[in-house]
C-alpha cells in the first residue's frame, strides 16, 4: 500500500465530451491516455490522495476577475465553468485543510485569458487560476499570492490580470517569445507603476532541457519566492515544455517535471497546456501527482526517453545563466525601477494603449488603459475596450485593497460612462465584492 507523505487533493476533469473543434489540440482525447495511465498506476488508491468532484464556478466568481464582453454566458461554455470550478474546488480543499496541497488536472486551460474577454485566445477563454485566487481572497482573506507559470507559452493572460497588483507575484518561465506564441514575456516586462517587480519573466532559449529548467527554479524562482513570502503558491502547470510536444521546441522530461514540482512545493497546481497527449501527458501527470504527494517518482520514464538525445548545449546553459542574472537583478532593484518609472510620469495617471489579438476566435481588440498612480493601493484601473466584433465597453476595476481616493475615482468613472462612447460599462468593486454592469446601448 502507498501512503502519501503529503495529503494531496486531486480534481480530474478531462471533459471527455468537449473540444474547441474536432481536430484542435484542445479536444476530447487530450487527457484520455493520462486517465489510462493514472488508473493503471492506481494513483487514486494511494492513501492520503483524495479525488474531489468539481463544483462549477458561479457568474460572480467570473465577474470578480473578468470583464466578459458582452457577458460571461457569451464567452464561456459549461466546460469553462467546470474547469475553473475544478481549480476553485482544489483551492477550497487546501484552505479548508482537507489536504495539504492539490492539483486541478482540468481542461480547458486559462492562462492566456486576460482581464477583458471578448473571446478565446491561445485556447483560453477565462483565467482559471485567477478565478480561483480571487475567490480564495474573497472567501478566505488570503493576501500575498505567488503564481509560477511553467507552461511553455508565456502566461500573458495571468500577467495582464496581475500587472498592477503588488500583492500577487507572477513569474512565468517559458520558451523565448521571439520563437513562440504569444510572442511576449521578456525580462523587461516587470509590471505596472504600482507593482514593479511583481511580474517577472524568465524566457528560456529553445531546446532547454531538465538542467536549464531546474537551474532557473533553484537559482531564480526559489530565492525570489523566499523574499516575497507568499501566503500561498500556485503553479500554472503547463506540460508543453516536454521534448515530444508537437507545438513547442523544448526538451523537458516527465522526471524533470516531477523534480520541478518537488522543488517548487506549490500549494496548488493547475494544468495548463500540453499537447503531446500520448508521449508526455500520461507520464508527466503521473510524475507531478507523485511528487506533490511526496512519493518516489524516480522510476517514471517515457517509453522513448533518452537523456543524451535531449541534453541542452553549453550555449543554452550559458544563456540561461545570463537571463537568470537579469531577472534577479530586476527583482532586487524593483523599488529603484519603480521610483524611476514614476518620476517619468506626469500627473496622477499612467496610460497605455494596446492591441490584443484573440487567435483562437480571430478577434482584434484595442484597449486604452489608465491606472491611478497610488502609494497606498494597487490603484483604480479603467480600460476602454473596442473590438472588431463592434463591441465598445468601459471596464473599471477597484482593487481589493483600494484606498478611499481610488475607490471614489473608480466609482466616478463607472457612473460617468455614457452611451456616446460605450455600449456597456462594467464595474468590479472588489472591496465590496460587487460586480455591476450598465447596458448603455438601449437608452
Amino acid at each position, binding site marked *: 500500500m502507498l501512503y502519501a507523505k503529503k495529503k494531496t487533493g486531486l480534481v480530474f476533469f*478531462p471533459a471527455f465530451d468537449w473540444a474547441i473543434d474536432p481536430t484542435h489540440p484542445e479536444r476530447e482525447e487530450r487527457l484520455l491516455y493520462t486517465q489510462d495511465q493514472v488508473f493503471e498506476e492506481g494513483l487514486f488508491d494511494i492513501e492520503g490522495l483524495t479525488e474531489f468532484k468539481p463544483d462549477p464556478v458561479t457568474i460572480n466568481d467570473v465577474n470578480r476577475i473578468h470583464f466578459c464582453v458582452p457577458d460571461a454566458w457569451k464567452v464561456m461554455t459549461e466546460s469553462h465553468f467546470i474547469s475553473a470550478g475544478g481549480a476553485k474546488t482544489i483551492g477550497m480543499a487546501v484552505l479548508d485543510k482537507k489536504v495539504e496541497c492539490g492539483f486541478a488536472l482540468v481542461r480547458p486551460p486559462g492562462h492566456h485569458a486576460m482581464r477583458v474577454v471578448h473571446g478565446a485566445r491561445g485556447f483560453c477563454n477565462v483565467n482559471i487560476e485567477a478565478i480561483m485566487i480571487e475567490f480564495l481572497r474573497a472567501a478566505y482573506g488570503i493576501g500575498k499570492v505567488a503564481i509560477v507559470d511553467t507552461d511553455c507559452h508565456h502566461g500573458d493572460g495571468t500577467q495582464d490580470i496581475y500587472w498592477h497588483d503588488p500583492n500577487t507575484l507572477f513569474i512565468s518561465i517559458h520558451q523565448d517569445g521571439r520563437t513562440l506564441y504569444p510572442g511576449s514575456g521578456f525580462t523587461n516586462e516587470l509590471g505596472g507603476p504600482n507593482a514593479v517587480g511583481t511580474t517577472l519573466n524568465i524566457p528560456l532559449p529553445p531546446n532547454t532541457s531538465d538542467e536549464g529548467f531546474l537551474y532557473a527554479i533553484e537559482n531564480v524562482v526559489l530565492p525570489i519566492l523566499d523574499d516575497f513570502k507568499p501566503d500561498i503558491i500556485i503553479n500554472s502547470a503547463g506540460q508543453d515544455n516536454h521534448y515530444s510536444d508537437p507545438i513547442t521546441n523544448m526538451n523537458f522530461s516527465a522526471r524533470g517535471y516531477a523534480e520541478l514540482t518537488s522543488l517548487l512545493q506549490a500549494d496548488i497546481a493547475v494544468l495548463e497546456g500540453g499537447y503531446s497527449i500520448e508521449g508526455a501527458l500520461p507520464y508527466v501527470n503521473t510524475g507531478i501527482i*507523485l511528487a506533490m504527494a511526496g512519493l518516489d517518482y524516480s522510476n517514471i520514464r517515457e517509453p522513448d526517453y533518452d537523456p543524451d538525445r535531449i541534453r541542452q548545449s553549453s550555449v543554452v546553459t550559458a544563456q540561461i545563466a545570463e537571463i537568470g542574472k537579469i531577472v534577479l537583478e530586476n527583482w532586487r532593484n524593483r523599488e529603484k525601477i519603480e521610483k524611476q518609472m514614476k518620476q517619468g510620469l506626469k500627473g496622477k495617471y499612467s496610460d497605455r494603449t494596446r492591441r490584443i489579438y484573440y487567435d483562437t476566435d480571430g478577434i482584434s481588440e484595442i484597449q486604452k488603459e489608465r491606472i491611478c498612480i497610488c502609494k497606498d493601493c494597487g490603484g483604480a484601473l479603467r480600460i476602454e475596450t473596442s473590438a472588431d466584433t463592434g463591441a465598445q465597453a468601459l471596464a473599471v476595476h477597484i482593487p481589493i485593497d483600494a484606498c478611499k481616493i481610488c475607490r471614489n475615482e473608480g466609482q466616478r468613472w463607472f457612473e460617468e460612462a455614457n452611451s456616446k462612447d460605450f455600449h456597456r460599462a462594467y464595474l468590479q468593486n472588489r472591496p465590496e465584492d460587487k460586480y455591476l454592469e450598465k447596458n448603455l446601448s438601449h437608452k
Partner: protein
Amino acid sequence: MIIGLDVGGTHTDVVLLDNHGLVNEIKVYTDSTDLFSTVLNGLRKITQDINPKLIKRVVLSTTLTTNFIVQGTLPEVGMIVSSGPGIDPMLFKTNGHYYPVSGSIDHRGRRVEAIDHDEVKSIGSKLRADGVRQLGIVGKFSARNPSHELEIRRILKGRFDDFFLGHRVSGNLNFQRRIATTYLNAAVYPIHKHFFQAVKKSLDQQGLKVPIHILKADGGTMNFESSIHFPGQTILSGPAASVMGATAYAPAEEDILVFDIGGTTTDMAILIDRAPLLDPVGIELGKYKTLIRALKTRSIGIGGDSVVRFKAGEIEIGPDRAGYAMAYGGTRPTPTDALAVMGKMTDCDRDKARKGLEPIASEMGISIEEAAQKIFDRTCCLILKAADKMVDQINSKPVYTVHELQEGYQVKPKKILVLGGPAPYFAEHLEKISEYTVTVIPSWKVANAIGAALARTTCEVTLFADTERGILTAPEEKFKKNISRDFTRDQAVQQAYELLKQKALQIGASSEDLEMEILEDQLFNMVRGFQTTGRNIRIKAQVKPGLIQRYKDVVEKLSLQSDS
C-alpha cells in the same frame, strides 16, 4: 425447486423454494472450523423427505474464501509481475514469493520492452525449488495487451500446476489491484476447489445431481466449474445475499436503501429500480484492494449486540461486540438490552437487561427506561447518519464529462428496506425519526438465503477498439480480432453484447435471464498532426444483477405468505 444457502458468522440459513413460494426454511449453527459439515448439514436437513429429482438448482453463498483471506492463512503461491516504468512494483508486494521482472507495455498496449526469458526461467526454477505449485503472472497494461503474461506462462509451461493470469480477472485498468486480485485467486484456489468438489461429490451421493451455483460479491451467481479459477469472486458474498433478498421486495423505478441489521454490524446498500448499485472499482478486503466486482456496500460497527458505553456525556454504540446481549446471558450492555427493557423484545431475560443498563442510567442521572429509549434512539440515529454519508459519497463521485456533471444521476432514496435479526424492532423507530418510509422485508430472517436462491448469473465484458492500430480486443475473454479503419461504435457494441452473452451462458446463465446493458460507451477520434487517424472505442457491458425470471411469481407469493 431451488435451494439457497447462506453461511453467516453464527447461523447458516437455508431455504427451499418452489413455484408456490417458500417450502421450508431452516437455520443451522455455523462451525467456522468446519464449513464443509455446516453446508452439508444445512443441505441435508432442507432436502429431508424431498425427492432429489425435483431440485433443479442449488445456490451457495459461503464465507470460506473470505475467512481464509481475513485470517491471513493463505497457502504460498508464486507471483511474477512485469511492470516497466512507473511506481516501484515492490510496493505492491503481496507475499514472499513475489518477483518483478523486466518487460513493459504502454497504455495503448504497445510493447516497449521485451520479456527477458532467462530471467523468467531462473525465477521459475527458484519458485519450483521452494515448492510453489500455483503461479500468478501479472503485467502492467495487460488488460490492453496480455502478450507478456502469455509469454511468461509459455516459458514456464509444465513447471507449475496452475497459472493465474492478470488479464483474465478484469478488463479494468489498475495494476496494483490486478496483482492483488490475481494473487487472491491463486492463493484461495486449492481451498475453494477442494471444498466445492467435496460438496458436489457428497450431493451426488445423495442423488442430487444438479449444477451448483456460487454467489458472488456482485449479487450474481456463477457455476462451480467457472469459479474454479476465479474463486476471489466469491468473497464477501454474504452482504450480496441479503441485498438480493431485499431486491425481491423492492418497488420498481425507485431508489431504495437496504439495511441488514445484524448482531455485530449494519450493512447498507442501494437499489435503483430493483438493481443493486455496484462499486465502481472493486472489493477492498483487509489489506487487499481488488478488481473484484461487488455491490456498493457500507458496513458500520453498529448492531444489536454492539457494546454500549457512556463517555464524555455521550452514548457510544460499538464498534466492538463482546458476545451476546446481557438479556441473552452476555456481559456488556447492548442495544438489544435497550429493546428488552423497552419491552419490545420479549423472549429474553429482561431483568438481566435492566441490570446491564443500570450503570449507564445512573451515570446519566435518568431512569433505566429513559436510558433504554436514549440508547435505542442513538443507535437508530447513527445508522441513519451513516446512510446519509453513503448517499452523499455516491453522489459526489467524480465524473469525467460535462454531460454527466450536469445530468448525472443523483441517488435520492425515500424508502428503506430492513432485514436481519432485530429488523422489526428497528423499522418503526427509524421511520419515526427520519423522512424515510421504512419497511421490514417479509421473511426477513431468511431473506439472505432467498436472495442467494433467486439471484441470476451476472458478468461483465470490457471491449477496446483502436482503429489506428486495427485492433479489437477483450483480453479478459481471450478475444482479439483485426479490424478495419471504418469499424464503428455500433459494431463494437454489437460485439460486446455477443461476448457478454457467450460468457454469461458459459458460466451458468439461462437464456431468459440475460438482461444486458451497456455500462460504458466511449468513442474518441484520434488526431495526430491535425489529421484524424483513427478511433479509440471503449465499451463495457454487463448482465445486470437481479432475480431469475422463472421464479418471478415466487416473489409475489412470498410476500403473500408472509402477510398471512
